[in-house]
């Protein structure tokens, strides 16, 4: 779907969410803790909400929301993000998009 393609290929970290989805909130908190400012697309207020959901599932996201894209590529939903983070592979992926507010650990 064009809309999804366009939105997901925006620079940096892009997350499709729903306002009622608390796991979406969880994923946002995690990126915030990693000093990343993701672009959030809340789809429940979008008229094309159902189409977007279907498109996200078709692309390969395990659940439609949260759907996380980094640098235009699909990372996945909450499970995939958590697995990546615990394996130490998430931070290298988002490094170009981390703000330099704090000293690196």
């Amino acid at each position, binding site marked *: 779907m064009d809309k999804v393609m366009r939105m997901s290929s925006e620079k940096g970290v892009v997350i499709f969410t729903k306002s*009622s989805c608390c796991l979406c909130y*969880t994923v946002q*908190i995690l990126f915030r*803790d990693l000093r990343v400012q993701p672009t959030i697309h809340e789809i429940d207020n979008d008229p094309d909400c159902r189409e977007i959901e279907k498109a996200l599932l078709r692309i390969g996201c395990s659940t439609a929301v949260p759907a996380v894209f980094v640098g235009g590529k699909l990372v996945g939903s909450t499970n995939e993000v*958590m697995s990546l983070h615990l394996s*130490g592979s998430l931070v290298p992926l988002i490094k170009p998009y981390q703000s330099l507010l704090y000293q690196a650990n």
Partner: protein
Amino acid sequence: MNTTSTHFVPPRRFEIYETTLNQVSMWEENFKNNGGIYIPNSIIIPTDAKQDSLSDDTSHGTPHKFDQEASTSRHPDKTQRRLAQNREAARKSRLRKKAYVQQLETSRLKLIHLEQELDRARQQGFYEGNRVDTNALGFSVKMSSGIVAFEMEYGHWVEEQNRQISELRTVLQGQVSDVELRLLVDNAMKHYFQLFRMKSAAAKIDVFYIMSGMWKTSAERFFMWIGGFRPSELLKVLLPHFDPLMDQQVLDVCNLRQSCQQAEDAVSQGMEKLQHTLTDSVAAGNLGEGSYIPQITCAMERLEALVSFVDQADHLRHETLQQMHRILTTRQAARGLLALGEYFQRLRALSSSWATRQREPT
């Protein structure tokens, strides 16, 4: 002076670390062999070191064998007093033992009765409808057959867990090949993953049941985080037991622990948000108007999300175990799994110890 060889400590209170009927008969033997005087053995731990007037006897209490003749001739009164005290202590000990054995017998009968019930239920293919249970306040609470099944499955899981831990313990004490160890490690990992699958199925049936941790023992419940153990805490407990670790491994484990904490934090905050939205749903509209079907309907929808949080928490546990398996050598992983298993065994022992502690009436 009188000859004494043992320090007599009347067990005013005792905690039972692990009690079986075998230990009662051991106690009986102990009891008989020591001339009717109770000598504490390693199984029963006297916790109250306070000595009452009975053993205020500044000498060392009861000698292992009576040495009456030698003592009577020199200090008849003291000896008589000591003998009377001993008789009193022995009498009280016998009474306590009697009460304890009666308690055990009752529990044993209860256990047999429960096992028979469960066998009957298993043969019937579990209940067609719902089993009615009573909660703490005596209200009838429907326990779905899926949850009954989960509880039984979990009982088997713990048995298998204990067997695996014993095997690991034995094997690590001797010489064991890496190949054999790898098999044991893989089995242990699979065993944990099986539990997560069981919990996921049970959460779909009754998420509140999983969240309450009712299938766990009380001490385990105390440390619970969203339906199970907290991965970062566990890493902290286990870290000292992996020595020696290579530098890279130390770095990897520390990074893992930090990632765990960040992930847990994010999930916890998501949970909080869920609780807030649930409160909002329940409290919406006019509190006091007496009809609230829409609010309940809305809250029910929100509750569905709780299942995905339980799943996410178990996902974190799953991934933490996977990562540890990746970071450690086979031998280190075996050692770690043994430590992990025994840690939970100790928590379970703490729970039963706490439950059976005897309190003196004040």
